[in-house]
């Protein structure tokens, strides 16, 4: 009996030490659970950290005391924190995120109705950014390898830096002026036919594309100096094979981490861009809800955005592990 009890953990420990993949999975899951807990707790505490009575703040000083009291009771704010917290946790895991204070609709319903528009925007913008950045960054890397074409490098680096700094909502405004107001090619705002997607997607995609292309060029130049590229050249492969088969995949693994970072800032960027284009997604909803102090809706949407970011980070780590098996060892 005792022997079984002692050998089991020992064997598990030994297997953990041996299997780098298993260790990677355990560590990564641990980090995900910790982040998720911090996120849910922060979103729970948000309403309690607001100074004064959040319901009174929301309803205004003229609201009758009875209404405020009723709302407080409905939100469960009168219960002790230790009762509210498990209740909130249960709600989160069963999909019950409370009811909107202004429309009385369930928050989960509002989110599921608004989410597709935001997801479309984010995914399309990410794909656009990657589709532009990879060929441009790789080509610039090949062109400027080993200190060649210094002028092209300077022009590219400064252009991509300026483009990478312009915030998406300002770019959106400029694009609206040029392509919607002036040229009339696309609608000014709203979500409708395919044309209405162009400006929001472009304004979201430009900054990440510029940043990614800039990093990819640097990585490509570094990889092109690696010994294995010299080996590939010593094999007298055609230049295209050297660049595309040997250099690019290695340069991409280095840029992949940045891709994740860009994707999560892109998720946040939708908030601003949706407000420029009156896009009926989560971003315009959360801003409206903050302005009208509809706290349950804000809590729910913050949670959704946060989980989105966590999922992106997880996907990036897994992709990195698959592309470059050595990163798993490094992680452990």
């Amino acid at each position, binding site marked *: 009996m005792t022997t079984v009890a002692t050998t089991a953990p020992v064997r598990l420990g030994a297997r953990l030490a041996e299997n780098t993949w298993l260790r990677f999975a355990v560590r990564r899951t641990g980090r995900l659970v910790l982040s998720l807990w911090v996120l849910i707790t922060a979103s729970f505490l948000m309403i309690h950290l607001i100074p004064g009575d959040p319901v009174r703040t929301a309803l205004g000083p003229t609201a009758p005391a009875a209404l405020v009291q009723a709302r407080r009771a409905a939100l469960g704010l009168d219960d002790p924190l230790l009762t509210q917290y498990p209740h909130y946790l249960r709600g989160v895991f069963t999909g019950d995120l409370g009811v909107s204070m202004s429309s009385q609709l369930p928050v989960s319903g509002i989110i599921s109705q608004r989410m597709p528009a935001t997801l479309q925007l984010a995914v399309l913008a990410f794909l656009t950014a990657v589709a532009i950045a990879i060929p441009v960054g790789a080509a610039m890397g090949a062109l400027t390898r080993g200190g*060649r074409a210094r002028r092209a490098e300077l022009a590219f680096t400064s252009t991509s*830096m300026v483009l990478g*700094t312009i915030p998406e909502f300002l770019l959106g405004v400029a694009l609206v002026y040029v392509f919607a107001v002036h040229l009339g090619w696309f609608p000014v705002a709203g979500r409708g036919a395919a044309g209405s997607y162009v400006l929001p997607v472009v304004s979201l995609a430009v900054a990440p594309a510029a940043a990614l292309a800039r990093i990819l060029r640097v990585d490509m130049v570094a990889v092109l100096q690696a*010994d294995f590229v010299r080996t590939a050249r010593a094999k007298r492969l055609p230049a295209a094979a050297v660049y595309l088969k040997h250099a690019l995949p290695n340069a991409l693994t280095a840029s992949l981490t940045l891709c994740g970072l860009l994707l999560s800032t892109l998720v946040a960027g939708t908030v*601003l861009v949706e407000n420029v284009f009156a896009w009926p997604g989560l971003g315009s909803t959360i801003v409206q809800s903050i302005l009208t102090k509809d706290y349950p809706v804000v809590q729910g949407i913050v949670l959704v955005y946060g989980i989105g970011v966590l999922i992106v980070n997880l996907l990036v780590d897994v992709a990195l592990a698959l592309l470059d098996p050595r990163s798993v060892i490094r992680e452990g």
Partner: protein
Amino acid sequence: MATTSTLAALPAGRGRWRRDGTGNRWLAVLRTPVGAGAGLLLALVLVLAVLAPPLWGDRAAAPDTDHILEGPSAAHWVGTDNLGRDLFYRVLVATRLSVELALLATAIGVVVGLLLGTAPAVLGRRGGRFVAAVVNVAVAFPGLLLALFFAVIFGVGMTGAVLAIGLSGAPVFARLAQTLVATVAGRDFVAAARIAGAGRFRLLVRHILPNVGEPLVVNATIGAGGALLAFAGLSFLGLGVQTPRYDWGRLLGEGLAGIYIHPTAALAPGVAVVVAGLAFNLFGEAVAKGIGLVTSGPVAGAVAGPVIAGDRAPAPDGDVVLDVGELWVSFPGPAHPVRGVSFTVRRGEAVGVVGESGSGKSLTALAIARLIGEPGRVDAARLTFLGTDLRTGSERVHRTLLGTSLAMVFQDPMSSFNPTRRVGAQLAEPARVHQGLSRPAALARAVDRLRAVRVPAAGLRARQYPHEFSGGMRQRAMIGMGLMGAPALMIADEPTTALDVTVQQQVLRLLESIRAADDVALLFISHDVSVVAQMCDRLLVMYAGRIVEELPAAQLRTSARHPYTRALVAAVPDMRTDLDQPLAVIPGRPVDPAHLPAGCAFAARCPLASDRCRAEDPPLVADGPGRRVACWHAGEGS
């Protein structure tokens, strides 16, 4: 991203004693074009922030009901808003509030970040770990989401927005401070202070913070640019500055509503935000880059460029695989790392090239294989491989010849294989390209070649990645890659240097057997005299980019005539070396190819050097059958 680039720019080994140089280096940044432009822009923004409100505050606030929502005109350059106020002056005056709020938010971010980031150093292990874990979670979330979260807590308005943007920036600064403190805390002078009994807090304030100050300031500058843009975002959403006060974001939000009738109302504040944000960003980046920059010293010692003399060597006979005459390799600047090297390699012959690192032996090999890329330059009187002149013609013309007949083995088998592709596929590649084999046929040949270089379980190994191979096995696989074609010459550049001594002999024996079996000529490059003597028929001794002696390998130990060759031989201990004596070394250091002396490059380290040696470089002349030497005192003093 800004954080990582600045971290990379952080020079290693910087201590307190170099703080005096800080001001100079920041000034030096202002002398670069990017730094000067960004600095000027930043100064303009700051001056405007100070002067605009007292100068034009009244004009910006004066309503003019006769000119409501008008477009640009001579009186109102950018137009007017819904109360007829002049938007040009409103944008200028808004500079103060926009910059002020951004700086305030950055200050909050830096202070809170510093507190969080240095907490591990002050709190001790357990408390520090907790703080670090929270920071790690927070840093993964985009700043705007954090700002929205805090905006809810602190309420909609200016104060709430400053706190929100400040706190949302804190995790990034905390992470930066953690990294910087961890780097500095490991340094010797901190360890010394710790041993001297300095407390944790004192250690932090007196020894650690002064050393992380500079990168922190640089990142705060970049961060201020980010805060400015973020604030514009919040104000634009209506969550920041509230009327009657106004910043650029507020003006932009108000302007967007009327973009159809009056686009400049939205565009002018937008341009202001981008310009100011860029000014902070660019200036920070320029300083970050400037701080890490090492200025190169003055270049001295000009050396004559490649003067390619006519054919001095006898015409080669038909058995010659490689014929090199007057080969020069140059890089921009005065450096000529290879200066007029001539030699031939015959079929099945093993020729060794030996010399210290920096003697030009590897560059000679790369130049022969046409693997020196721009900005390097290769000049030669003769460079003939299997009867083909390699000096002319494009890469494409020689691709098949070089791809099948010339094999290369590089020094580091770890880095010479592509880490993301399977070994078999990497071997199969040249066969597919040059011999037109199908994928399965090329793979089958790759497995066969792996077997030929004695890689066990070759079929299985071909499907593995390079990092799953041991060092010796990788090098054998590299040799196998060279055997995919039918090589006439194998250039092995330090093939055993990166390997274990026990594995070295295996690889050497493999090269030996390949040469014997297939009549492959071998150009073997090494700094190890004993290995070269064991492997080769004939040796070329290189020093400072020239061949200084050529001799049969068998005569190396007994009758070397150049003092440098003798010194190399003497530096290798053998079974008869007297172990009570210190090992022989060559005094001095190899010459820098950019600073060559006028006479013999070895003169400064040579026991036989005379005035003539220091004035005149000795030519490489015939010195008995199969021998050449470049020394005014060849054979003396033995």
